[in-house]
């Protein structure tokens, strides 16, 4: 009888130990889920691509000044883009966005012009996979100018901002 009581006590302690382990695991899972930030970089890259495309072309026609030097130099103002970011994690010294636009003759695939803005160094990591690398999005569209010349325009949009989107 005395031995039964000891066994019961040991089992009670053991039961609470198991309960504590289960609770610790649940707490860890909750913290790892709710501690993980929302990753919206892909959505940002899509929005950036759409904004650039909307600036270059409208209703199937390329905007007239797009291939001019003036447009290339003042691209950010012309397309209402601002790549300034919060002054955190050294983001201001190391740009968080990059956009590259390449214009091709649709029939011959010959390159006509290109526009590059932002931190070009982000392009190096585009072929690497993993959440800690910047998100790269390359999309294309077909358009005409008023003289009915055919163009293919490739837009590469890169968003870094890993510190606020990845744990």
């Amino acid at each position, binding site marked *: 009888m005395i*031995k*039964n009581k000891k*066994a019961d006590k040991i*089992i009670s302690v*053991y039961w609470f130990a*198991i309960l504590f*382990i*289960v609770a610790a*695991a649940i707490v*860890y*899972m909750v913290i*790892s*889920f709710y501690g*993980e*930030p*929302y*990753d*919206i970089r*892909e*959505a940002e890259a*899509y929005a950036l*691509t*759409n904004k650039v*495309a*909307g600036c270059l*072309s409208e*209703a*199937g*026609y390329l905007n007239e000044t797009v291939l001019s030097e003036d447009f290339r130099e003042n691209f950010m103002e012309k397309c209402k883009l601002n790549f300034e970011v919060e002054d955190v994690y050294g983001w201001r010294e190391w740009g968080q966005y990059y956009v590259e636009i390449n214009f091709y003759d649709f029939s011959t695939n010959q390159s006509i012009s290109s526009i590059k803005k932002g931190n070009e160094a982000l392009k190096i990591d585009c072929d690497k996979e993993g*959440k800690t690398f910047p998100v790269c999005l390359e*999309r*294309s*569209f*077909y*358009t*005409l100018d008023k003289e*009915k010349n*055919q163009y*293919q325009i490739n*837009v590469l949009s890169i968003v870094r901002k890993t510190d606020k989107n990845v*744990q």
Partner: protein
Amino acid sequence: MFYPLLEKQTKMFNKKIGVFMKDKRSQIGETMTWVVATVIIIMILLISILVAASYLGKHKGVDFLAKRSDLLASESFFAYLLTEDTGGQTVYEQLRNQENLNDFNGNLAIKIFDELYGGEYPEVWIGIATNIAVSPSIKNQYFGSKPVLTGGDPKYPFAESIKKPDKPYVSQRITLDESKSIELVLTH
């Protein structure tokens, strides 16, 4: 007189020994149960932690499969319809006057939509859509038949009982005349 007493005591002693041994066996049995239970509990916890840490957290993003429009594809579609052949007739005018895609606009559509969006979307289709309920789209030799977008068995398109959720897709439609339209469909 002595022997029945001794026998009685022996029986009582045996009974006690029996109980004692039973207790011992049940304690060992209970311990083994707890060992197995501990192993199972720890395995389940490890699996849950792995799932929570690696899978659930990853999916805290924006769901793109739900998007129903594609600005770049729309721009390409408008430009496609405005493209002129060597005779100066636009693709839009050709499709208004003809029953289906021809060599010029069919191959142009493949060059634009298959090549630019075929890698992103599993199914790309361009063709003539009609207002006729029985045959709402016309098959063409460049893109085949229009993909089934609503749920259910294509053999029984009106059977409510076998409805499934719609496939997510992007669609752009331009009216050609009262009876037909040109439609671009990109399914996810």
